[in-house]
């Protein structure tokens, strides 16, 4: 068993180490001093966190409904929820672009409501949400599936209303799965690249995120800087995921 763990983890680490050895001091200094790259870092962090929060906001009620209730068209709803996972990422960007630039409803949102998404920072959040929310929804549903409804029934006989049995029993028990969904959503959002290039572009200091920075730097021949940004992204991701795993695990134990 451990053989496979060692091989897999070893392979990934080897790739990272190869990147690290390719980076030079100048590239690291450029990374730290460039206000555009720091802006891209800030954009990556806040947009991915907002997209994840939005995804979780939908994931809990949608996951619970799909897990507990039977209704006509449930299978179709399930399939639609999984669709963005199967979509090639570029298609998500293209679809959003077509919707907001070519359809009446999209145009009305953009111009009538004044909620502009195309080439705007909020477009990054929308793009990340559409691309990654399915992970949160799917994990949330699985988490609620794993919570035996008898726990909620017992809570009802112990004085809870439906909402109370949900918040006091079902939600804490499903928290682990929901957190896992959140992690997957954040990870996907943080590293999203293709749809962003199509829907919001990569304007320096405006809609640039770290993933697009890597592309921009390598496209102008700054391979060392591109790799420095990539390693920096990996570092952030590893730290964040480790913290979330530890905190999430502790939450599950002490809830």
């Amino acid at each position, binding site marked *: 068993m451990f053989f496979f763990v060692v091989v897999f983890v070893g392979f990934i680490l080897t790739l990272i180490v190869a990147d690290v050895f390719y980076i030079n001091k100048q590239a690291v200094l450029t990374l730290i001093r460039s206000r555009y790259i720091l802006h891209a870092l800030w954009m990556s962090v806040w947009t991915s966190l907002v997209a994840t929060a939005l995804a979780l906001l939908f994931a809990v009620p949608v996951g619970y409904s799909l897990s507990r209730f039977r209704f006509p068209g449930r299978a179709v709803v399930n399939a639609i929820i999984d669709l963005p996972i199967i979509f090639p990422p570029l298609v998500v960007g293209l679809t959003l672009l077509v919707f907001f630039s070519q359809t009446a409803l999209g145009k009305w949102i953009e111009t009538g409501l004044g909620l502009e998404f195309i080439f705007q920072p909020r477009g990054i959040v929308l793009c990340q949400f559409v691309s990654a929310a399915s992970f949160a929804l799917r994990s949330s549903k699985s988490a609620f599936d794993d919570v*035996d409804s*008898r*726990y909620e*029934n*017992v*809570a*009802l*006989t*112990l*004085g*809870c*209303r439906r909402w*109370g049995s949900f918040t*006091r*029993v079902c939600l*804490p*028990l499903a928290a682990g799965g929901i957190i896992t969904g959140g992690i997957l959503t954040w990870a996907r959002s943080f590293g999203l690249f293709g749809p962003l290039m199509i829907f919001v572009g990569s304007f320096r200091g405006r809609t640039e995120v770290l993933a697009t920075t890597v592309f921009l730097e390598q496209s102008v021949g700054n391979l060392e800087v591109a790799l420095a940004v990539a390693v920096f992204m990996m570092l952030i991701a590893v730290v964040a995921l480790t913290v979330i795993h530890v905190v999430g695990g502790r939450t*599950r134990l002490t*809830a």
Partner: protein
Amino acid sequence: MIQARDITFTVGDFALRNLNLEVPCPQYFVLLGPPGSGKTILLECLCGLRQAASGSIHIDGRDVTALEPRSRSIGYVPQDYALFPHLSVRGNIQFGLKVARLARETITRRIHAVAQMLDIETLLDRRIQGLSGGEKQRTALARALVMEPRLLLLDEPVCALDEGSRQRICGLLHTLQRKLCLTVIHVSHNIEEAFSVADTAAILDRGRLQQVGPLHELLRSPANEFVARFMRCENILPAVAEPDPRGATLSRSMGILPMNEHEAGATAGHSVATLGGVRLALPRACTGPVKLVIRPEDIRLLRAGPAPTDANSLRVSLARWRDYGAYMKVEIRTLSGELGLIAHVSHAAFAALDPAAGKPIVAHLPIDAIGVLTD
């Protein structure tokens, strides 16, 4: 009094149909039935976890049909207990008290009292995952009892326990019911479990109540073949009953009937049944096709001697036997081979027969132990 009137509930192919049940308070009542008979669904209807399509439920005269579970003053222990795994033993027990927003002192006092009563004081800070089956059971009981319910509903409460724990918990449940003057409805498929806790029971099959009454009545006077089989009566024999040809002049107590395997005696004023080439005296008057229910433990086996003169004494031969630990299960057949019966006898009584395969003996079927099903 717990009253369920005309309860109808359908789920998939299964349905409870016009079910009526009355349980006086306080009482320990067992709802018996095979798996899939609807016991749990009925319990959940009483709880309010399922809403019956029609009918009403009254608890102590109060119509609770439309009330939510939390307003019914019931305690519920589901199968496998459903203890909240994210809470400690204390967290589980105080769950309902916290929902009710009782004062901290009250919560502490009630937890202490119920933990002392169920002997789980040392477990209060333990996690659920580390508890044994019996400890989980007592924690689940504490969680329900701490709410001081008027009605306690237990769904197969001891089915997951080993024999020792099962007996201890059954004893505890029986004591608690008396001590707290509670009404308990206990769902089970196990007859021994029912006898160990209750005096009264109902038997359910495929959504219909088959019989309600004291357990000894279900055992001795089953209402139908299903109840007889469920109560583990192994001798259910089709027969034809007719009026006693000897009229009122003969009496079992007189012991004057000539007995053999073709003609057993009859009691005055009652009927006789013909089956498998023998005639058996019946305890009540009836005619036509019947089914005779004879409990294996009621059949007495005796060494063959002179022609038996007691009513319902048959010459039989030993066919097979098996040691069941507490008793011997013995298969006997009439000498003509047409009628087979199963008897449960003590080891001592069996040894006294000096058993050998095919050996002729006498089987005595006391007339009062014969049940007659006419439907």
